[in-house]
Structures are given as structure tokens and as C-alpha cells.
């Protein structure tokens, strides 16, 4: 048992050993020393007795959780688990959508570019005009979806009564 408190006088040492009297913390040699010290020191013996009494009383204090608390907690945890599950599902749906959009845009960009070039040629538009048109048309769906999502708040949030609202009320 190595502690700063052990460096002080024998009474202090004995009291620390009594207070920390877990089996794993005190060696046999220390226990013998403590027993010998208690034999000869009434004040430490009294401390040992009151410590034993304190520990006994501490262990006897009855505190139990009510059935209502347990059922409420279980219900809240289940509800939150469901919300987290829905969030995860939404997250994966959005990931899948992003992947699909990336693939589609990769495939269609070349075709769309050629289409715009052809229209520009037929209508005799200057090159910057049909190129600008291509950029606008190409980015428009993503911009619109972004605006819609932002206007509804985060796309991962629950739009019905969420856990945060429920717990704060």
C-alpha cells in the first residue's frame, strides 16, 4: 500500500490502513503491524470501530428505483433508439442518392455538352452563351434540392415531434 498518507506518523498510517481495508490493498505484513498497533492504541481502536460502523451503515442505506422510473426510462431509450435507427436509414438513403447522382452526372455530362454545342451551332449562339446555359442547366437540380433541404432544416432531422422537443417539454 503506497500512499502519501503512509509516510506520516504510525496513528495516521494505521487509520489509513483501516479506511482502505480492502483485502487487495493490505499485505499480510501490514495487517500484522496494524493488529499489533490496535492492541496498544485505544484511539485508533475507536477509529477502527467507528469506521466499521460507518461502512456497515453505508451498506444498509436502502435506495431503490421505482418501477415507474424504470418503465419510463426503458420507453424513452426505445423511442430514442428508433429515432437513431431512422436517422441512420435516412443517412444511407442520402448516400445512395448522392452516389447515383454522381454516376448519372458523369455519364450524362458528355452527352449534354454535345447537345448544347449542337444547339449553339444550329442557333448560331456565341460559345460563352451555350456554355453558360450548360452550366446553369447542369447545376440547377442540385441547387434547387439544396435550397429545399436548407429551407426545411437539416435533412437528417426528424420533421415530426423529435426527441429533443419531447424531452424539453
Amino acid at each position, binding site marked *: 500500500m503506497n*500512499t*502519501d*498518507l503512509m509516510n506520516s506518523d504510525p496513528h495516521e498510517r494505521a*487509520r*489509513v490502513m483501516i*479506511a*482502505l481495508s*480492502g483485502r*487487495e*490493498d493490505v499485505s499480510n505484513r501490514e495487517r500484522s503491524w496494524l493488529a499489533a498497533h490496535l492492541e496498544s492504541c485505544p484511539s485508533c481502536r475507536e*477509529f477502527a470501530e*467507528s*469506521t466499521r*460502523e*460507518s*461502512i456497515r*451503515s*453505508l*451498506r*444498509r*442505506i*436502502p*435506495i*431503490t*428505483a421505482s418501477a415507474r*422510473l*424504470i418503465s*419510463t*426510462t*426503458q420507453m*424513452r*431509450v*426505445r423511442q*430514442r*433508439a428508433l429515432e*437513431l*435507427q431512422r436517422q441512420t436509414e435516412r443517412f444511407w438513403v442520402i448516400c445512395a442518392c448522392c452516389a447515383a447522382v454522381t454516376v448519372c452526372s458523369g455519364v450524362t455530362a458528355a452527352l449534354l455538352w454535345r447537345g448544347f454545342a449542337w444547339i449553339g451551332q444550329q442557333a448560331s449562339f456565341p460559345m460563352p452563351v451555350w456554355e453558360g446555359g450548360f452550366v446553369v442547366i447542369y447545376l440547377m437540380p442540385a441547387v434547387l434540392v439544396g435550397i429545399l433541404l436548407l429551407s426545411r432544416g437539416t435533412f437528417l432531422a426528424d420533421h415530426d415531434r423529435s426527441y429533443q422537443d419531447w424531452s424539453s417539454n
Partner: protein
Amino acid sequence: MNATACCFVNAMTVENTEIARGLRRRDPDLLDHLIEKYQHRLLRYLLHLTGRRELAEDFFQETWIRVLERGRQYDGRYEFSTWLFTIARNLVIDHLRRKRPASLDSLADDALPSDIPATAELSAFDATVQREQKEQISAGMQHIAAEYRESLVLRFQEGMSLEEIATLTGTPLGTVKSRIYRGLSALEPWVKGVR
């Protein structure tokens, strides 16, 4: 380590691994089981930490919500109870920080008057003596510093080892020992008052 102790340690490790696996899956049945298993221990710890039943019950619920949300962080290397109590402790400290910049010490004043019950089911003289002892100790617990109270509860009510308490509270082993010693010394007058 003898064979029985070895089997016990292995069983504990397996149980912790199972819990870690279930928490990663956010298994609601496992959580129901854990809530029931640790109900009294967690509430008792929170009640001693906060000193108020309603507050302790709020933290009790929030702790389990946090366990669900952060379950992936538990890897099963430590005892589940140590991790659970650490979450509960951090919640209480966060709450205090939001209220005012403070540490666990400020609970010592907040904790009065105590809601910790001191009832006994025994009859006649023994019941009276025991009730008196519990009332005195409960009262004494509410008057000692919160960090002493916490160490005493973890050590003598929850039966945690000194190392587990040090891990949970994030304090050096020597400090834990000193808190237990000083906590018991601070309780001494209350015990003497009973005798």
C-alpha cells in the same frame, strides 16, 4: 490466480464483450436488461451525487439515453458499471457547469436537504436503532464534501476497487485513497453521535 478466480475473470470479460457488441448494435432488449440490472446501483450513486431524488431520476434517464447514443465507445475492456458511472458523473458535472462554472464540490451545498430515505423493515428495538443509524449516516453523508461522498459510495456501496474508482473519477490512486480516508474520518462524528 486460482482456477475459480480465472473462470470468474473470463466470465466477466465475456459478459463485457457481449454488452459492447449489443451496444454497438443499439440492441433495445439488451438496454432494457441493463437498465433493470443496474437500476438501484445507478440511482443510489446519482442520489448520493446530487442529493435530490427528482434530479437523480432525471440524470438516471439521461444516462441511459447517453449509453444508447455513445454505446459504440464502450469496447468491453473495462467493467460496464465503471463506464456507466463515468457517463452519469460527466452528466452531473456538465449540468453543474451549465448552471455555473463549478466542479463536483458545489454539490455539497446543493445536496441539502437530503432525499435519501432511511427506512427499515425490521421491527421493535433493532429497527429503531438501525433506522437511527441510517438516518445519522445519511445526514452525515450529505454534510461531507461531494468528492469524499462519491468515493465512499463507490467503495463501500458499489464495492469498486480503488483502481476502478480512480479510472471513473479521473483522479490519481493516491487521491482516491486520501478521499476515502478523509471521508470516513469526516463521518466519524456522525457515527459517534449514534453510539
